[in-house]
């Protein structure tokens, strides 16, 4: 492989972003053109990397180095894991760029949008390529920035500005742990580079408690980025961003970065079984909780957002169940069908002039045939319809749970049931029945730049699971591969059938929500409210106390007490009349006196 190829992949979107932000702010169409071109070049280069047969190699240049004390390079890992991820990111990235040219066509800040989209591609590809924890952290923070900028794209809306802040700050809380974990590992091994770290860890035999603590702290990064309990609260709000952004960043790629990071550093987690248990439980609890919430939401994007949370929970749990291959496989298939569902939702929202409430839709199957067909493919793939991509990957995760923890298996099965249920509810309410508002009367499919990405993603959502599984299991050495169980398969298919049939029975022909006895789910388990109270009685209170104490105690009493009370204010005022120069020299004199006194006394 040409060693310049990964450099090109990484730098090309940065150049596009810089060009757009610096010189093309006032020419939106050329900005869009440059951004789309850069995304397409990225895809071509990623395909080139995919087909190169050079063995796994690490290419690096020094970035921050202090001799033997510390070495942080910018370096690339090219192995099957990163190759797959490159394809996913650049592939869906390119489609979303193309789709955005229509979706954002009349936006007043189109140039800024595309500049930030390219900035996101740069940051995300950096995470994928990174060969060390510090570099991953750098790009980890940068995707946080691009996510902040894109969620807040319509920043004049208070809700968008609030959501952007919430996303960035919540992620920073996760990164607090991530960085601490990196420091712990570095303090023990003296390196942050993955292969060296892996070799050293095998070599020096750290205490299990130390390893577990380090692994869990690193996992905090995943809690933030992949929105797992208890840091999941930012992702639903992130839907304030433009829908293509939700598809690319908050469904297919960035939120999956947490899972990718776990897979990339699996050598660490496999050595810390206690940490893996925690990870498995956090993942599955997130999956169940988000699925329960999704059953009662009315905003089409929020339903999909909770679905994303739930599926990310699946993936995280799979890593905890010692099945990182299953997690990566599900990440891969999920990226296609969830991007498809979001772009489909975007087409609907676009057609209905920014209507997002599913109860104001209805009957769209006849009016938006193309969108409907693609959306149904994504829907079936998500709920695990046999034969489609999601079926294969979900089955693998269920199998891993079945083999290691029956309770987690039951919860995973429950999640699969709920997924079939809430997604069927969504499809029935949005596409079937009669239109329930007049904006549905004139709805129609978008132009080719919108439907083509949908069609491509639909095809990928069908075939992505066919025979691709081995790629993922080959990425990890020494994994146990559980035998396929037809019992698990049968259970998976029956909950799929049960969930979708049940939801169809309940929701077909309804014009409003028939089930409203679950305020707990509707109100998202009150997480936002609980956090608001928590923050108010800790951070906010402390800040008020500190600001008050600084003004009225440290400053007033100490400083003014020292100056004002002892010398008398009249004396003070006279100084001010004559200016500071004299006052200053007077004090200077006092200093000298003290000094001489001290020196004489000291000797």
């Amino acid at each position, binding site marked *: 492989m040409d060693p310049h190829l990964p450099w090109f992949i990484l730098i090309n979107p940065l150049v596009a972003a810089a060009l757009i932000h610096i010189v093309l702010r006032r020419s939106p169409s050329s900005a869009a053109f440059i951004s789309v071109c850069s995304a397409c070049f990225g895809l071509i280069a990623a395909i080139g990397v995919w087909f190169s047969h050079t063995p796994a190699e690490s290419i690096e240049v020094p970035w921050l180095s202090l001799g033997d004390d510390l070495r942080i390079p910018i370096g690339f890992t090219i192995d099957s894991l990163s190759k797959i991820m490159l394809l996913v990111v650049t592939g869906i990235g390119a489609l979303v760029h193309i789709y955005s040219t229509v979706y954002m066509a009349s936006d007043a800040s189109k140039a800024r949008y595309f500049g930030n989209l390219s900035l996101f591609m740069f940051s995300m590809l950096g995470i994928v390529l990174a060969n060390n924890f510090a570099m991953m952290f750098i790009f980890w923070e940068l995707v946080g920035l691009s996510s902040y900028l894109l969620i807040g794209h319509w920043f*004049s809306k208070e809700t968008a*500005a609030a959501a952007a802040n919430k996303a960035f700050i919540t992620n920073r809380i996760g990164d607090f742990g991530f960085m*601490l974990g990196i420091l712990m590992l570095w*303090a023990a091994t003296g390196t942050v580079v993955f292969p060296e770290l892996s070799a050293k860890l095998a070599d020096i035999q750290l205490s299990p408690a130390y390893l577990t603590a380090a692994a869990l702290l690193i996992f905090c990064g995943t809690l933030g980025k992949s929105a797992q309990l208890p840091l999941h609260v930012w992702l639903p709000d992130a839907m304030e961003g433009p829908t293509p952004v939700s598809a690319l960043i908050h469904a297919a790629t960035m939120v999956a970065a947490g899972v990718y990071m776990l897979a990339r550093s699996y050598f660490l987690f496999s050595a810390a079984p206690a940490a893996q248990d925690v990870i498995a439980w956090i993942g599955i609890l997130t999956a169940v909780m988000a699925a329960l919430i999704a059953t009662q939401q009315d905003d089409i994007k929020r339903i999909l957002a909770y679905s994303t949370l739930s599926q990310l929970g699946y993936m995280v749990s799979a890593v905890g169940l010692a099945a990182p291959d299953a997690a990566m496989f599900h990440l891969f298939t999920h990226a296609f069908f969830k991007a498809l569902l979001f772009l489909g939702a975007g087409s609907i929202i676009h057609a209905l002039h920014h209507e997002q409430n599913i109860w104001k839709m209805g009957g769209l199957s006849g009016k938006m045939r193309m969108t409907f067909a693609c959306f149904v493919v994504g829907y079936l793939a998500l709920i695990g319809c046999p034969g489609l991509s999601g079926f294969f990957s979900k089955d693998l995760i269920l199998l891993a749970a079945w083999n290691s923890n029956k309770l987690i298996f039951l919860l995973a099965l429950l999640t699969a049931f709920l997924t079939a249920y809430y997604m069927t509810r969504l499809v029935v309410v949005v596409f079937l029945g009669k239109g329930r508002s007049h904006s549905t009367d004139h709805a129609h499919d978008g132009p080719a730049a919108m439907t083509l990405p949908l069609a491509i993603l639909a095809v990928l959502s069908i075939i992505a699971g066919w025979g691709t599984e081995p790629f993922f299991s080959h990425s990890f050495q020494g994994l146990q591969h559980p035998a396929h169980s037809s019992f698990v398969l049968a259970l998976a298919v029956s909950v799929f059938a049960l969930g979708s049939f049940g939801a169809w029975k309940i929701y077909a022909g309804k014009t409003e929500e028939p089930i409203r006895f679950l305020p707990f789910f509707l109100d998202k388990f009150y997480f936002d409210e609980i956090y608001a109270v928590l923050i108010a009685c800790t951070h906010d209170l402390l800040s008020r106390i500190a600001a008050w104490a*600084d003004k009225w105690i440290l400053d007033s009493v100490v400083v003014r007490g020292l*100056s004002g009370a002892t010398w008398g204010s009249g004396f003070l005022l006279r100084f001010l009349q004559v200016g500071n120069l004299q006052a200053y020299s007077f004090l200077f004199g006092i200093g000298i006196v003290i*000094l001489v006194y001290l020196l004489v006394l000291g000797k």
Partner: protein
Amino acid sequence: MLNLILLLPFVAALLVLLGAPARKTALISSSATFLLSLYTLLSYDQAKAGFQFVFSKTVVPDWDLKYLLAVDGLSLLMLLLASVVALAAVWVTPRIERRENLFYSCILLISAGAIGAFVSQDLFFFYAFHEVALIPTFLLIGIWGSGDRRAVAWKITIYLALGSAILLVGLLDLHHAIPTGQRTFDMIKLGQLSGSGLIPAAAQARPFVFLLVGFGILVSLFPFHTWAPAAYASAPAPAAMLHAGVLKKFGLYGLIRLALPLLPDGAKTWAWLLLILLVGNIIYVGFATIGQKRLDLMLGYSSVMHMGYIFLGIASFNQVGVTGASLLMFAHGLSIATLFGLTGYLRQFSPTLAFDSLGGLAKQMPFLAATFGAAAFASIGLPGFANFAAELLVFFGAYKTSFAAPLSGNFKIATGFALWGVVISAVYMLRAYRAGFLGPQKADSANWTDLTGSLKLPFILLLGFLVLSGFFPNLLLNLVRPALQVLLAH
């Protein structure tokens, strides 16, 4: 060369005071200083390292007191910072209604004093040049400040004069602690001798605590920080830029240049105290920053808070941490100067800069919003800016320090607090940015206009250096590292 760089702003200040066209003279002189500093930096022989461009003239032979100018990597970094910020500060100065010449003269004097302190390698001149820079700072606040400027000027005068006096005591005590016969004011010699344990361990504790408190007050070390937010809020923008960006770094520079190499055992004795105080800077002041309701005060507090990180790097007493502290001095100087410069521009529209009176400005002031956003994100440690690379070094250095061995667990805890400070700083910066620039526009800000034309350039210059050194931190590390290796030799 160094003589020229140092004399230029002094001569310009004098000329302006005597009636030369103020802005023009100041701009020419500070541009020339900047270009000459850049030239010095580029022609510094990194392979040879050590002190270069030496100019020496004995003043008092008996005391080995000399007018000694020379730069090593550390001094060069500070020289670059001082000359960039000085140029930007002159550039952003708006029309001054009264006593314009005195104003510009003061600005030039501050930059001259700061440069002098950083390139002088003699204890006396090191101290004296800093004093030269302080006086015009008081004048700028007292005469051209906003709000309750007299009270603020008085407070900063008391505080900093007290700090300087304590510092002077410390310096003389330090000088006294050196065995007779080896006593010298020559900082180059002192640095070289430090490796061999110049001062007996037992005699190090007292001078160190004087230096720590003296320098600490000048750098707004908790709890001696309350002068800073008020002073920066009241000071005219160029003065705030120069003081927070450059002059304040004198104290940190002094700790690295003098206290650490000459008094390592003193540093070890007092490490516990410094750790507590710097956590106070990061956590207590961090919370106080969140509680602010005005943009200028919030920035003042945030600048105090970030000093905690530099102190942490210094406290760690190893290559990684102290290098991080040096780089952070540079990075923080540039980012805070940008923020104060932009805030100064906003003040012409909104004198109090209360968050309530701002809002939605990103729509009508896209350039200001973008540059403010960039500097804000830089200051909270976003990768791509030098601040991040520097903070990373500080964290790595502090976490793994073996200095003051019984305390190494406490260093880890302090690092943990410092990392939580990164969350705190995201909270206050993003809240402030949202309050000022996002959300719906306010009616009374309808006719506020964005920066135009050449007014944009100083900010592009400051951010340009921040991004360049953020993307390629090794450029600066390779410069600083040999100097610190000498200073931390033992």
